[in-house]
């Protein structure tokens, strides 16, 4: 009668015999890497196509002063669009909705700047006059002196710095441009957080 130890030894040698010729037939490193990259592209493509519902306070945005903004990170929905996949969807111009990232707080004060267009809003987190403010324009045109800029996570955006403010324009789904004016020292990652890919 075989004891448990005998049987275990037999199993070990049986397993060793049965698997001695079992080795990977393909170069798994390159195969897995290739499939991983392809899967990442598919996931990004799906996410870019889905508007971020959580950031859908349409038409409002908030810029955070540099000392406050430095403590915040861009929300995931804005960052995942970084490596745009090569597909027919991004052959067309990328469109964005300017939206207030909820993680920065709740907009408590919305005003129209005296000199602004009808679609321009001055926003502040918390109470009016608290010092945390930003200006967005939801329907405007691209000025001739705006230059294409590279902000991680955004494609086809333009920018211009005027003194201590910086304005970023992005094409929107209405066929015009949306603009966000923030403190010039606001990090790119915080700026990117305001832009959500439009469906």
């Amino acid at each position, binding site marked *: *009668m*075989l004891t*448990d130890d005998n*049987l*275990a030894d*037999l*199993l*070990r*040698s*049986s*397993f*060793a*015999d*049965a*698997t001695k*010729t*079992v*080795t*990977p*037939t*393909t170069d*798994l*490193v390159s*195969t*897995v*890497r290739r*499939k*991983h990259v392809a*899967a990442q592209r598919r996931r990004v493509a799906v996410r870019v196509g889905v508007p971020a519902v959580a950031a859908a306070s349409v038409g409002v945005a908030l810029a955070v002063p540099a000392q406050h903004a430095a403590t915040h990170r861009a929300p995931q929905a804005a960052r995942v669009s970084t490596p745009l996949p090569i597909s027919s969807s991004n052959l067309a111009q990328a469109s964005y909705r300017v939206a207030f990232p909820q993680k920065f707080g709740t907009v408590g004060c919305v005003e129209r700047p005296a000199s602004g267009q009808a679609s321009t809003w001055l926003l502040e987190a918390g109470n009016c006059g608290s010092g945390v403010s930003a200006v967005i324009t939801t329907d405007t045109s691209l000025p001739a002196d705006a230059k294409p800029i590279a902000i991680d996570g955004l494609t086809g955006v333009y920018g211009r710095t005027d003194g201590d403010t910086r304005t970023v324009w992005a094409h929107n789904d209405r066929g015009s441009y949306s603009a966000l004016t923030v403190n010039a020292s606001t990090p790119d990652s915080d700026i990117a957080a305001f832009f959500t890919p439009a469906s």
Partner: protein
Amino acid sequence: MQLGTDFDDFVRVASPGLLRTAFLLCGDRGHAEDMVQTALLRTARRWSTAHAQPVAYARRVLVNLAKDRWRDRARRPLEHESAELELQLEPEDAQIVLRHTLLPLLMSLPARQRAVLTLRYLDDLSVEETAAALGCSGGTVKSQTHDALNRLRTLLAEDTLKEINHADR
């Protein structure tokens, strides 16, 4: 997360062992390679979590894939799984004959028991490591090992009896 050279090193070192485990779990070389690729891809996707213990992570994924396959196969008509395992062994002496007999019998064990024996006696995992890979308690691993060895012993005895009867005819 970008994959670095540490992932490549992990794949090179761990894939032969994972493939052998997968082969014994499913009994089919082609399926085993598919399962290993899928396990490695899922490990790559969660590399930030998995890189602390990548082999354990990949093995857990592999076992889960095997479970999915067992469930799927349980709904289908029975196929002869052990054909490939049998073909790999050429009996030369009594010990090898016994080993030859053992593997087909292993494939006839319930999936969970087969997994426990594979992880414990092919991968030489401890009870705790086996429990982690299977997502069960150490006590369950011990009882499954005990039941599996008893079952194998019974099957071996029945098999030997059949051969004696066959030889007597």
